[in-house]
């Protein structure tokens, strides 16, 4: 049971990668990339988890002695999410440009046109 979160991260990564490789539509490809990125959030949060511990937020009444799950990986995940979102937006802008210039969204048809 204890390996399940890691297995989920691996599964998300490879399912997303399969989608990217076999994609027939650039927007679909970006979504698959998003699935791959989610695997890194799952992996980071799974690494920092401590059984029975709560979130690293010590409002009044929560003694510091209790401890918490690892806050560093949570901060890293936050950075990860922000970077993913901006990268996704930038790639989608590229997709819009491709569509405007070639009228096509299938990665395969783009390749054929060039060669």
């Amino acid at each position: 049971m204890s390996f399940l979160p890691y297995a989920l991260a691996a599964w998300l990564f490879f399912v997303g990668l399969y989608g990217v490789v076999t994609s027939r539509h650039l927007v679909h490809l970006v979504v698959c990339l998003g699935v791959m990125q989610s695997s890194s959030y799952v992996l980071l949060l799974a690494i920092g988890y401590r059984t029975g511990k709560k979130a690293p937020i010590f409002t009044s009444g929560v003694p510091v002695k209790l401890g918490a799950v690892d806050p560093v990986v949570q901060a890293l995940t936050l950075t990860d999410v922000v970077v993913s979102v901006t990268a996704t937006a930038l790639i989608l802008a590229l997709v819009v440009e491709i569509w405007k210039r070639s009228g096509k969204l299938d990665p395969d048809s783009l390749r054929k046109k060039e060669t």
Partner: protein
Amino acid sequence: MTRRTRLGTFVAAGAALAVLFVWALTGLHAFGDFQGEYGRILNRTAGSQRHVTNVVAAIVFDYRGFDTLGEESILFAAVIGIALLLREARDEGERRIDVVRSDFIRAVGLFAVGPTVLVGLYVIAHGYLTPGGAFQGGVATASGLVLLYAAGRYRAYRAASPKAMVDLVEGTGIGTYTALGVASLAVGSAYLANVVDLGTKGTLASGGTIPILNAASALAVIAAVVLICHEFLEELMTPA
């Protein structure tokens, strides 16, 4: 490369990667048994050292504040990239009609604008006390503004967020963050060191530079999301 050879390459390369991936994962500790000292020490000391209750916020805006500056630069660069790509070849033609026809959606959607922005601002303001912060609250606030388009009309969204002002807010956010780092150099500390009075733990006036950096980041995030939506919606609104 045909689809067939690509799939074949993927199966072979993917299998090799999977073996390495699983091998790396077997080297990890059992789930729930993390022993990293860095996070443990911060959980113990951040509260008394920085007078904040949310340790993640203390890491994002203080202990690893320099990383967040890099993160914001990525945000900034991406927004510039999107604007360069999409603004370039756009002719200011006639706008498409973009009226939401359902009265119900318009009423509920426009009613939600105020509460959404308010929740977003609340999440930002209490980011270093309770779960939340500049990034989460910033996106929520910006989505409140985008509701003006989704439930109302594009023109209302544009009127509520004039491009010149949003550009200025974006620059102010990043600029304040950078300038605060330089200011801490000026008083003889390290870059982005926490040099302001730490205040009372558990109140809004706590954390020293954390609330300032939090607010600066919030401005940058709100403006970035609003600008990204501007650029994409502009594509939608001008006839191809």
